[in-house]
């Protein structure tokens, strides 16, 4: 695969369009799976995102007493922007929006931004369920963030670069997922967690009346829902250059391979998400600190040793 | 742009932080002041790096400043929690009384 070329800024519109369509796809797949579970025609469920979009576009926005409207707007707007910031460093074949020299760290910084957004979305409405959701997310956040950080580090160490394009180019013939599967799995757990939906969804979920979503209606709600799906897609898209060999593959052009791999991983994550019950933060804390973190560190050790031996 | 502009901005950040650290009563707000002072240090160091020295030492200094910030925050929170737990104190004045 050749060098990555940074494209001009207006292409961000195309990226936004792609992300939006992928987010609709996530919701459609989720709806179809739900419909199938209820023994109803999957096609009806697959229409769910369009119907829901129409409904929320038509619905009025409401506020609560003594709400911090400014912070709520920041959170809602941030949800729409964060996935875009993530995919900005993901090369689509040979093109990338921002060929940042520290793309991997950049991605990490944006996924930490999600902490801020979720908490602000919980804080803004000044209501009990929202606030509880925001706090519960932060309670769990560190337990997925640290393992995720080390999982991100492993491919960067192997490629000897923090530039996403270099990491993708560093796995000619052998995608990193083959010899760092643990890092890949830990990374996927992280994606499930920062996309703020089950099974790691302490900020939402039916048991706290959808938490940070509880007081949002109309366009506000639509943006947060779309942002949530967008985060899942962006997480899957970032895994492609990091673990899945980027645009390399037979027959098809690179950009198409990136899209195909992203779509497949996204679909897998949606299916996993449906099959697992919600995990409570205190349960996940134990898992994160005692299993995921040591596993990620061990993986990093293995990768480092391999890199040292190979050079 | 000259180095002076960056340094004056950094000095302003530092001074605002100093004001916060000296004037605030609540431990957490004092810590915010300290953080702001270190923020100024970060900006100044980056300016120095750009304008005077291609030496990586300044970058290393920046990493040390970041580590210092982290340690300051973590220990600050821990001590604040300890104070809170033992005496319900959350103000610096109250903590000063503990010494007597």
């Amino acid at each position: 695969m050749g060098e990555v070329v940074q494209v001009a800024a207006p292409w961000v519109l195309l990226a936004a369009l792609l992300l939006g369509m992928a987010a609709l796809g996530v919701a459609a797949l989720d709806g179809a799976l739900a419909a199938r579970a209820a023994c109803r025609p999957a096609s009806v469920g697959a229409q769910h995102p369009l119907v829901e979009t129409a409904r929320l576009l038509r619905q009025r926005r409401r506020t609560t007493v003594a709400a911090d409207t400014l912070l709520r707007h920041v959170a809602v707007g941030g949800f729409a922007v964060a996935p875009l910031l993530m995919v900005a460093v993901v090369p689509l074949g040979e093109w990338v929006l921002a060929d940042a020299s520290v793309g991997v760290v950049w991605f990490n910084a944006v996924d930490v931004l999600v902490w801020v957004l979720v908490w602000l979305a919980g804080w803004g409405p000044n209501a009990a369920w929202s606030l509880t959701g925001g706090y519960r997310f932060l309670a769990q956040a560190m337990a997925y963030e640290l393992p995720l950080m080390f999982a991100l580090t492993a491919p960067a160490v192997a490629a000897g670069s923090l530039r996403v394009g270099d990491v993708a180019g560093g796995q000619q013939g052998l995608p990193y997922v083959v010899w760092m599967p643990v890092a890949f799995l830990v990374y996927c757990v992280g994606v499930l967690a920062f996309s703020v939906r089950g099974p790691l969804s302490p900020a939402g979920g039916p048991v706290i009346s959808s938490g940070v979503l509880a007081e949002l209606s109309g366009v506000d709600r639509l943006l947060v829902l779309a942002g949530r799906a967008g985060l899942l897609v962006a997480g899957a898209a970032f895994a492609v250059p990091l673990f899945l060999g980027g645009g390399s593959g037979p027959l098809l052009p690179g950009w198409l391979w990136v899209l195909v791999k992203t779509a497949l991983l996204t679909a897998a994550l949606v299916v996993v998400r449906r099959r697992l019950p919600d995990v409570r933060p205190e349960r996940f804390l134990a898992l994160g600190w005692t299993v995921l973190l040591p596993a990620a560190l061990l993986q990093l050790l293995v990768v480092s040793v391999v890199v040292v031996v190979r050079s | 742009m000259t180095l002076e502009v960056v340094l004056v901005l950094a000095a302003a950040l530092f001074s605002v932080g100093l004001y916060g650290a000296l004037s605030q009563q609540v431990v957490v707000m004092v810590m915010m002041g300290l953080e702001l002072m270190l923020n100024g240090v970060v900006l100044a160091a980056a300016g120095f790096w750009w304008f005077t020295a291609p030496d990586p030492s300044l970058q290393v200094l920046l990493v040390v400043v970041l580590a210092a910030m982290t340690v300051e925050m973590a220990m600050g929170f821990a001590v604040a929690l300890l104070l809170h737990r033992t005496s319900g104190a959350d103000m610096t004045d109250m903590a000063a009384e503990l010494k007597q």
Partner: protein
Amino acid sequence: MAVSLRPLQRVLARWAVRGTTVLLVEAPGGWAARVAVERAMAERGWRAASSPADADALVVCGTPGDGWGEVLERTWAQLPGPRARASVAAPSEVPGALEGLAASLLDDDVQRVDAAARDLVPADVEPGDDMHPAGLELAGGEDDLRDGLEMDVLRVPLGPVLPDWPAGLVLRTVLSGDVVVRARVEVLPGAPQRQDPADDVARRLDAAAQVLRLAGADDLAARAVRLRDAVPAPRTSSTDRPEDAPSPRTSSTHRPQRGALSGTSSTDRREGGAGAAQRRRSAGDVRELRGRVERSRVLAWALREADVVTSSPTSGAESDAAPASAPDDLRDVGLDARRRTRDDVRTLLLGLLDLDARDDDPGRRIRAALDALPERLVGVDVVSARLLVAALDLRTDTLDADDLAALAPREDDSDDDSSDDDSDDGSDQHMHHGHAHG
């Protein structure tokens, strides 16, 4: 300009109404109506709302009694709009009610008038002062049970308008952070309804579905709902349940449950064997579901300690004030008081799906559970509290008039010393209850 937008708006409205979200409110005695509404909603592709902000329509199931008026008005005011509301007292009223909702939501003119008549920015914001900004009381601190830290104390009533929550139940909680410090049980009454013991299996499956839904196990919950809707009508009750009459409409493929029900009731006398076979098959399905729930390691792992918050030994001081319910009573209702049982929710869930275990006197069990609940929830976080309440399958419509009088809402909102009052009341009611049921 406005004219040219009309067709577009109409298309948007038509699409929007296809996915209407409904906030279901169930008054005690409204169980059959709610189930019928849920069934009809599934046929239309409608969804249950998780909160008033999410809802397009408010549907009240059953007949609300005293004390509901204000609750319903407040909830209604929280719907963002376009909005519509309906009351469904009996299953037979369901089709008309939903038709009405859809028509009302589709009617842009009606909705515009409604929207113009109210301002969604809360109008009741008072100027307030330092200690009461916007006229709200400030949250104060209180010792937390979890780790000895002080968190903001909030007074949060749970219910009666809450998805997957017992009908009419109001849990007036004082929360420290997300941990329940105090709780008081109230029940808003519904119209008295004759109990049908034959509904027992369906009601258990319904409760199990609620627990599974709250736990986020959506697929299992969907399975439980399907089994609930497919429970064959019992012979004894088939004659006096209006919805069992053979439906004149041809049942489409999406409505197997209705077809099954009418088939059973119309052919009941001639083909008792077929009904029995169907009941057997249904029982087999329930057993299969129970097996899946039991085998799911992830679910067990996720539910374990679902009601336990590690409370520090220092909080043992609380126990002085706590009324001593006999452990036996708690075990009767499926709780283990000796230790804050790790597997309470899961055990209760499996119990719900165990068709061999019969609930002979649900009234007594539920009364005991309601008595035990306030004490049991102290130190439990609010999320676990919801799981536990759902798993207890609190059928408030089995309470008799005396019970309801004892659990009626009280004017004085919980003061600082109300936990003592509550505990006194609790034991008092408990004795009274023991008397009533011999």
